[in-house]
């Protein structure tokens, strides 16, 4: 279980970029961590290294945004935010069924602890705010 201490945005970006290199398609990356922990920074870096050219903006309101990356293997990058959910639904309830377990798709879920029944091929990333600009990142 790799653990990292991030001292700034550049460190978090590096951890996300490393993870992006290991993704082959069909994975679900489940992010947890408090408001302001840096989940969005992590997603932005992950998307960029996978070839997403658009600006990643918060999907809180619409729950899910789909991007088309410039990438030979991956044709969709799906960014989900479960912040507003109350833990009573699973990913297919919010319209994600079509995107799960597809070799050409990467799904990233923020506030993943608020949904039920995550698929087996899930990579869990937890970001903890440790005061100042410090963050503790655990990838499972």
């Amino acid at each position, binding site marked *: 279980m790799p653990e990292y201490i991030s001292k700034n945005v550049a460190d978090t970006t590096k951890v996300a970029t490393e993870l992006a290199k290991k993704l082959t398609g069909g994975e679900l990356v489940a992010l947890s961590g408090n408001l*302001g922990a840096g989940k969005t920074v992590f997603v932005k870096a992950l998307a960029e290294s996978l070839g997403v050219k658009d600006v990643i903006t918060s999907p*809180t309101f619409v729950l899910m*945004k789909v991007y088309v990356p410039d990438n030979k293997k991956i044709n969709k990058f799906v960014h989900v935010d479960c912040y507003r959910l109350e833990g009573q639904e699973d990913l297919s309830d919010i319209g994600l069924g079509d995107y799960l377990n597809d070799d050409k798709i990467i799904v990233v879920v923020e506030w993943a602890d608020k949904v039920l029944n995550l698929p087996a091929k899930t990579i869990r990333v937890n970001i903890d705010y440790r005061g100042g600009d410090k963050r503790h990142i655990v990838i499972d």
Partner: protein
Amino acid sequence: MRILAIESSCDETAIALLEAKGQSLNLLKNQVYSQISIHKKYGGVVPEVAARKHLETIIPLLGSILGKDKLKNIDYLAVTAGPGLVTSLLLGLTAAKTLAYANKLPLVAVNHLEGHVYSNWLTSSDLVKNPKKFLPALVLIVSGGHTELVLMKGHGQYQSIGRTLDDAAGEAYDKVAKLLSLGYPGGPIVSKWADKGNTKAYDFPKPMLTSPNFDFSFSGLKTAVLYTLEKKKNINKKDIADICASFQAAVVEVLTTKAMIAAKKYQVKSIMLAGGVAANKALQQSLLQKSKSQNLPFFYPAANYTGDNAAMIAVAAYYNVVAKSGRIIKNKDILTLEPEANWQLSKNKI
């Protein structure tokens, strides 16, 4: 020309009937069924619940709008095709597609944000009579899902000048309301508290105020509110009011400043506000005051048109037809229309 419009992009089921002729817009029917009371207990819209409620509401609502004439005098159907919650969009879209195809009527697929822009046309007859006098316009679209500056050169002609790089302004309101346990939706509640507070009590960051572009960022502002709260052991009513007032002042200053710089740079003839946050009095006042000082007409929608409604979708559809600018779909093509959850008003960024 009579247009029947359906809107179901989020948590409001809305249907409107518009009669438009040359330079007059006559709104014959306009009904909105809001689900806010249902979603309140969840602190936000729950897509599955919203979709089910749309399904229950849409047919009775159609029946009450159309009456015994049914679709006899309708020339066009219009429907919001995006952006929004895909599960919600699907309900309105399916109803509109079915009605249009079965009755051999053309269907206009309308962008929800374009609808918000045209809520100003529902409010101001000056705009309807003489749009050229006020275009190009700088439109600030602010809602729970969007914060964007758009240059509107003519009907259907939009150029994106800047937008939020992370959270929408309305979303920041919702999140601050949640941090303070004030309830949902956050916008009206936070601004009500803000009225009683001191705008200078806290020095919250004004993100990207001085950045040399027209983009916004509200994620850090919400985090600053969170850290302020974490430092305090107890918060009383005065603290809540002061935090809300200082937070709102930061949002309003950033939005107003950037809008005014953009208005000057692109030499627009008017400034318009659109979207759910257009109902915010502090933002209206700030933009009104600044545009007055630059002798620019300022438009903002009447309160009943700031929220999601189908009247604005009907007006947008009318101008789509007039300017031949939109997506007007006929016959079998209607069946292939799909919701576009992330449909952007304009992809071009200057």
